[in-house]
């Protein structure tokens, strides 16, 4: 069975936590079709949920009239996901590392950290209301320019 041909997909869903289930199912099906491994499934599932819930909770402030846009591309080499909310955005550099200070004793603040740890590339648009996350099946050598 050959990997499924790559194609860009875009879906807009209601801004509510439960909407992530359908998004997750769609993307996981693409991972399966492209023979990603268990570690990739775990990482993408984890980070996709974190990013989606951030968009609903922090971006759209739980406003059910707003939407979340999810764009993704899965091919035999990588999974590339962008999640955009309708909020004002935020500065990711201003978010504290949860491992230091009183971070380990605070209930929140680990979502972005987990996204950074489990995806190979995490980047935001200038406004800060859209995150793009990429995970490669075979890790590229980022030390080579």
């Amino acid at each position, binding site marked *: 069975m050959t990997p499924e041909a790559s194609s860009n997909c875009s879906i807009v869903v209601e801004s509510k*936590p*439960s909407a992530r289930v359908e998004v997750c199912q769609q993307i996981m099906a693409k991972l399966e079709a492209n023979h990603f491994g268990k*570690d990739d499934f*775990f990482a993408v*599932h*984890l980070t996709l*949920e*974190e990013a989606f*819930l951030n968009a609903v909770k922090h971006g759209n402030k739980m406003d059910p009239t707003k939407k979340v846009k999810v764009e993704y591309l899965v091919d035999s080499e990588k999974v590339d996901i962008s999640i955009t909310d309708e909020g004002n955005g935020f500065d990711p550099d201003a978010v504290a590392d*949860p*491992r230091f200070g009183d971070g*380990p*004793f*605070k*209930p*929140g*603040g*680990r*979502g972005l*950290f*987990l996204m950074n*740890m489990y995806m190979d590339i995490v980047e935001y648009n200038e406004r800060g209301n859209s995150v793009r996350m990429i995970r490669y099946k075979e890790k590229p050598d980022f030390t080579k320019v």
Partner: protein
Amino acid sequence: MKESSNKKDIQSLQDSILPMIESASGGIKLILDFGNVQYLSSAILGLLIRISKRIYENDGLLRLCNINPKIYEIFKITLLTKTFDIYKDIESAADDLS
């Protein structure tokens, strides 16, 4: 502790554990067995920290055990292995509490 991560499940987990902590006299000794947990989120980690705080504020003890390697990796990279007392299995966690 069952495999769960959505808001409803987190709420029900919180609702089932927190009253138990509050009602215990002299501090509760609680072991959370992660044997069936295949997935974890930052929201669940947050709940565990809230539970842990409440238990220790009430002079109780909390132990986590039976955590699979992928889940343990999350505890490790977030340095929560220093926040929680984690044991290999329920027997060793229970021995420590006895």
